[in-house]
């Protein structure tokens, strides 16, 4: 998870998924699909801000 390509890919997907979630919310409201996307987004964020650098897990909330 340390190489820059992996980080770039994670950031790219995060952005894409966030837009997709917003679009679904604006048309169909908060659905299971959105819940899964948001879950995946948070998992990606944890990688970007938590596991890749040395801050404590509890900071992300």
């Amino acid at each position, binding site marked *: *998870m340390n190489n820059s390509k*992996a980080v770039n*890919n*994670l950031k*790219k*997907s995060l952005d*894409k*998924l966030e837009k997709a979630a917003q679009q679904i*919310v604006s048309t169909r*409201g*908060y659905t*299971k699909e*959105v*819940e*899964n*996307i*948001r*879950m*995946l987004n*948070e*998992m*990606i*964020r*944890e*990688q970007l801000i938590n*596991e890749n650098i*040395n*801050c*404590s*897990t*509890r*900071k*992300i*909330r």
Partner: protein
Amino acid sequence: MKILIVQLARFGDIFQTWPVISALKRTYPYAEIDVLVRERFSEAMNENLHVSKTIKLSTAEILSSIIINNDEESCLKRISALCSELKNQDYDSIINLSFSPFSSYLVSAISQPKSTVLGYTRFSDGYLCIPDDVSAYFYAQIGIGKANRVHLTQVFAGVAQIDLVDEDWNCQNLGTENLETLAEFNLPLKKFIILQVGASQEEKTYGIDKWSQVINHFKKLSNIALVLVGSSDEKDLGEKIQQSTNGANIINLIGKTNLSQLSQIVRGSCLVVSGDSLLLHVASLTQTPTLCVSLAAVNFWETGPLAPESRIIYGETRDDIASDRVAKEILCMTEETMSGNPILYRTSYGPVAFEFVNYKFEDFSWHLIEAIYMQKPFPTICDADLAHGMLRLNELAQLAIQQLDEISFEKKMDIQVELLSQVDTMLEIIPRLVPALAPLVSWFQTERLRIGPNSLEQVLSLTKSKFFDLKIITDLYIPNSNDSGVVHADTNILT
């Protein structure tokens, strides 16, 4: 009864969850208790006999297709499969001890209508849902730089709605699987001290130079062996220390032990010396006295050592803690005497586990927390900025209540809406200007956050009631306000 504990933090938090698992098993002896942990830290559950199943969350596996070729669809399928698998377990109770956004979505996705959910989850509209008061306490008051003094293990127990008793900390099986470990490393039972010089974060550690100085002081005081432990990527730290501490009785095991062996070594030692680290939490479970050298990067109140007789030496920075003082404290702990220096002493397994010894320390913010959450008296104010900040909060609460009263859905309400928005802005500014008031504002904002999806009228009414609560508290500090007889702040300051 099936219980799932979601603990997605690291080694330290997983070990701090052990007493909660013991307490759950003691309370519900026939319950099936599963624990969801990250694969990377799952080893910390290996020796827990109360757990029926350790479920491992592999982040790397779930995210692999994004990392390789930005294939989000495959990741979503894996997330969906994970949720279905967990949901199909049909848990009666899900206890989320992770306090992270990811865990809140996960818990929301895997809970059944009949499940009791404790800890963070999500409302039906996707907003963060904090169903229990202890999780709300965590959200508002816990973390680095905050005034909380409640130990994290007690917070976990509070979320699980369970009372801990002393025996829950005594995890007798931890560190007993490899009885040959002490012999393997030639360690004499209860006649050596363990020293962990590294930690997961550089800012948590006392530093190699400082530890070397400690050892050089200690070798003049005692010949008890110091056993260095740590992970394999800390091997160079051990070598550096050995080079700079000639003549010291050191056994360097850095990088030579696995977690199970480490637990056994901790159990076999007479004392553990460490910063905020995994070792400290293992020592709490094996009841090994610990000296923790704690810096500002950690809130020792939350994660300090809980084994009886443990002590903490605290300094904002490394330079605030003299190395000879640490060496002397180590010696005193091996001799079971007091050094006379300022320390924090572990006094109980209760919510606040430590007491100041030879310190004079007043903390308005902590007393404010005690008053808000623990029915203690509200602290008096002896600071002009605090009095001023409290007055402004009271005015904001009154202004917000007035605006909320005036809001009607039949006509335009631009002024009221704008004023309420300004109140929100001021509520962010005040704790920055008067940090001692942060616990009060944080409590208030968290209570507002807990208002769930509802009709607009209901949301307005609930919001108003929260502002009333804020007003009631701040009224206590306003001269001549209509209070319930609680002792006032120093009114002279306000005039």
